């Protein structure tokens, strides 16, 4: 049986929850990782991933394979991450719900090399759109045209974002580059 993403989306559009669970299992890890790299926060990344998959479910009946499912999902995740940054508000502690388990992140950071920590901190310090452009280019391996399509901007704007992002990273990471 053909269980490509596009085939599963057709089934999900008909209300097939099993197909939705299969598609979620296939993509959730990369969605969480992408959201974590853009938001810089594990808890936000999980919320974004949940919202993204729920949007996949609710919009499946209208989805048309004009672009690949992966591109469409990436666009949803990036937009949710950028919206989350723009609409960040202070909520009372009771609205926080179950906190994300920070222990794995803390252990993860201890296991990373010093250079990797500096790189992560430098990337986290970038403006959102520059960070999104860097993550989509280096983590997802997308071309400038694909990044422009996802960010809803032009190729030249993406190139500008990348140039500026790399200038800031180079300034912050120069001692680490020389040590490499």
């Amino acid at each position, binding site marked *: 049986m053909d269980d490509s993403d596009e085939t599963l989306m057709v089934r999900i559009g008909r209300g097939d929850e099993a197909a939705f669970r299969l598609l979620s299992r296939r993509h959730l890890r990369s969605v969480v990782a992408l959201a974590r790299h853009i938001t810089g926060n594990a808890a936000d990344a999980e919320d974004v991933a*949940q919202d993204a998959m729920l949007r996949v479910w*609710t*919009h499946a009946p209208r989805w048309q394979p004009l672009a690949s499912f992966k591109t469409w999902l990436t666009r949803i995740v990036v937009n949710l991450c950028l919206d989350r940054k723009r609409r960040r508000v202070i909520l009372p502690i009771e609205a926080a719900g179950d906190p994300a388990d920070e222990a*794995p992140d803390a252990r993860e950071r201890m296991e*990373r090399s010093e250079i990797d920590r500096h790189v992560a901190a430098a990337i986290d310090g970038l403006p959102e759109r520059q960070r999104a452009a860097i993550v989509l280019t280096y983590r997802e391996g997308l071309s400038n045209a694909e990044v422009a399509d996802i960010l809803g901007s032009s190729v030249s704007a993406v190139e500008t974002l990348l140039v500026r992002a*790399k200038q800031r990273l*180079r300034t912050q990471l120069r001692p680490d580059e020389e040590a490499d």
Partner: protein
Amino acid sequence: MTSHPTDDRRLDAMLTRHFAAPARSDDEGARRVAGRLTARPLPRQAGTWLPGTWLRWPTVLLNWDLSPAWPRVTALATCAVLGFVIGLAGLDTRIDDASAAPSVTSADLPSLIFDVEPL
């Protein structure tokens, strides 16, 4: 500030290594999110308020995607030709030899177009 090509390559390599490193927290985060998705019923899907799949056809009419689609163009052309034929022939006449010749009655629209030459 111009960048040295070596600096670019080093930065590219550093970024590629950084993003290639797997994070165990992502697996655990994905498991938590999957648990949340199965913990409660999924919301209603868009466009499913009409019962039955055959009632979804109105959404096709509301589709403003104007890119050429040959099935759609063919259906439109067929409707146009059919309407033209029915308009000329009339729904109340039989398509046979007896009714093929236009009527000479002055009230008939075809008589305004086709001036039948008397034998």
